[in-house]
């Protein structure tokens, strides 16, 4: 077996070896942590996705070992493959952070920000993105863009105002299902996801568009307004389904299954696509063999306070910028209440200042 050539690539001062043909984004994902650019439209399981949202822009400060010239423009890391000896700047480049801030602002100017009533809130990539890279205010003073509401079937609800036109659902329908019934109509800022002549989406695997949607544009009608995702408990389960692998994630509260989704990895991408039957119709515990609680790491608000020992992303910030991040104030040195070794959940009853003093 011939060895695949390995390329050395340096991302934010961290050097790794990756197989030839890897994109910068995937190389950065191999490193993990803060140096990974965010991606709103790229989806590793969908062919042809990426390049549209422009949040993953990075600066290539050295093209390759052979041709060390830097690339003139910022490049979309999800669609640019690495070269041997390439040097990439992500969070160490002011230019990148500035451009990314601009992109986040552009994505948000017409986004309704109706997170309090949006079913996606808590697992929304746009929320994560604007939390990390956005600004607290807006400079946009005009009416937000609106669309006529469209009904696209009994199981999926479409909120076009929330859509960021990542084209992921279009690729999913094209590559996963027998026939695609929806696509992009119009152009520019009036472009919209729609089915021609108001057809409904019914297809064996069409429910997966809900999982790939990074925002709340496509949500599950059977879960609509039933619960907030952070109140429900994610549990891995499987069943013997004839159409798909049957490996799913149940979102439960008590004994009640509120929602069924596919399992997602740490980049928020579906591991295995599931069929509509599993997603919409098997909503009782007796349908499933429960494996155990899911490990949640990316969407922190879901794991908040639920589980001990959640997976943590590696921290590279000291390597990248060459020093420990400077804290304005180390809260643990100043306050008694925030001592790390004391777990609040183990204290019987409401915490009292005595609880913190008695260890001293």
């Amino acid at each position, binding site marked *: 077996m011939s060895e695949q050539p390995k390329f050395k690539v340096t991302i934010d001062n961290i050097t790794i070896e990756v197989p030839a043909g890897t994109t910068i984004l995937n190389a950065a994902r191999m490193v993990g942590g803060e140096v990974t650019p965010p991606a709103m439209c790229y989806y590793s399981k969908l062919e042809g996705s990426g390049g549209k949202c422009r949040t993953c822009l990075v600066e290539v400060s050295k093209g390759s070992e052979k041709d060390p010239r830097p690339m003139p423009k910022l490049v979309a890391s999800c669609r640019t493959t690495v070269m041997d000896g390439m040097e990439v700047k992500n969070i160490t480049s002011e230019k990148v952070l500035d451009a990314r801030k601009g992109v986040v602002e552009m*994505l948000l100017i017409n986004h309704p920000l109706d997170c309090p009533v949006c079913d996606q809130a808590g697992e929304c990539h746009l929320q994560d993105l604007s939390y990390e890279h956005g600004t607290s205010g807006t400079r946009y003073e005009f009416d937000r863009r609106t669309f006529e509401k469209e009904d696209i079937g009994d199981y999926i609800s479409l909120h076009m105002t929330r859509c960021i036109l990542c084209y992921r659902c279009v690729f999913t329908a094209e590559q996963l299902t027998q026939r695609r019934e929806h696509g992009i109509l119009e152009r520019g800022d009036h472009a919209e996801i729609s089915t021609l002549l108001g057809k409904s989406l019914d297809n064996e695997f069409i429910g997966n568009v809900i999982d790939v949607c990074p925002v709340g544009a496509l949500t599950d009608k059977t879960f609509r307004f039933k619960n907030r995702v952070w109140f429900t408990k994610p549990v891995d389960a499987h069943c013997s389904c004839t159409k798909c692998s049957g490996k799913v994630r149940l979102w439960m509260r008590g004994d009640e299954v509120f929602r069924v989704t596919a399992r997602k990895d740490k980049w928020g991408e579906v591991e295995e696509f599931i069929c509509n039957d599993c997603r919409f119709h098997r909503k009782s515990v007796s349908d499933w063999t429960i494996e155990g609680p899911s490990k949640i790491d990316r969407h922190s608000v879901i794991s908040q306070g639920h589980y001990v020992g959640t997976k943590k992303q590696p921290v590279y910030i000291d390597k990248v910028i060459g020093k420990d991040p400077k804290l304005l104030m180390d809260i643990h040195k100043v306050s008694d209440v925030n001592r790390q070794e004391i777990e609040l959940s183990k204290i019987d009853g409401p915490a009292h200042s005595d609880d913190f003093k008695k260890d001293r």
Partner: protein
Amino acid sequence: MKVLLEHAHVEGIRYYDTYRKNGGYRAVEKAFKMTPDEIVEEVKKSGLRGRGGAGFPTGMKWSFLAKPEGVPRHLVCNADESEPGTFKDRYLMEFLPHLLIEGLIVSSFALGSNATYIYIRGEYAWIVDILEQAIAEAKNNGWLGKNILNTGFDCEIYVQRGGGAYICGEETALIESLEGKRGNPRIKPPFPAIQGVWMRPTVVNNVETLAAVVPILNMGGEEYAKIGVGKSTGTKLLSVCGNVNKPGVYEIDMTQSVEEFIFSDEYCGGIPKGKRLKASIPGGSSVPIVPANLLLKTAKGETRYMNYESLADGGFATGTMMGSGGFIVMDEDQCVVRHTMTLARFYNHESCGQCSPCREGTGWMYKILKNIEYGKGKMSDIDLLWDIQRKIEGNTICPLGDAAAWPVAAAIRHFRDEFEWHVLNPDESQRRNFGLAHYADPIHVPTTA
């Protein structure tokens, strides 16, 4: 100096017989005696630069074409001339259709394309008929079809109408549209020279570029390179519109100064009614607008000439671009704010909606400019506009983002006081225009770039 339009005024030049009598199709006869590589070499020698706007050397583009064994290659003629202010290709196709067909046959032979496409904008409906008639005539006389002139080379030319989208003038969007898909630009690389139409190697060239291949073959590459100056070789068609006495299509050999071009009777014939020149966009709506003083003379005080290098002198700070040759002239009565708003509306309307900065940013810029124009603007809006255009430029898949950002950036850079006047005098700005200020004579040269 007329090279392309030499016979444009001969009666009946649109038809094959007259065209042939005036020396037509000589280039094809000559080309078939050469090898394809020799033709590419000849075009390289001529120094011909793409006439569609970017000015990329054509010979170089041709030599990048991948030539894998057993895979058909294609030549696509970009006749989707949608840039506001540009109408040179329309003139060429309407009056000299056989010149384009001849250029296409020669280029197809040089590139090995057996199926060549003309992608023409939908609005040019009557030109489609003209081209199709010309193709039929050429075919009847044995210049197209199977085994042309017993050389064993087959070539067919197909005319494809576009649906009327500006974005389909971008080469990868054009290819998508030609394939029958939604006209969204593709992400490069791979470039069309490797994977173009139906994933086959493709060359996309402008109408004028392909027409210019005919004189190059006729007079030889080196001879053609002697026309013009420096790296701006050959002749260029310019379509002039706006406040000039004689708008229309002109062919220049790029040695004229801008002043001569605007004011001499041979070309534009000056500004009507004795008005004074305020500003100009020398290369179609996407290139930066320049005020009169910087149009006639560069920042260093040298005379500016009508060619690629001289117009671009000073970069974007004080220069502009040759672009596609849509020369728009504005006199003292024109309002730059209104003009910029109109362009912003155009780019907002024509953005394909793929990448977020362009999709959202163009609409935002248009709304702000509308506020300023109608007296509802704030001083901070001008800085906001600057920031938005900066965040669009260079961050998009295709050059439409840049094209939308540059006019706004240049208008603010050179005409900031006019924007400020609009903000400070909301009522007065509805009644009258700002006028000239210091843009025209006496020549004022800004000290800072």
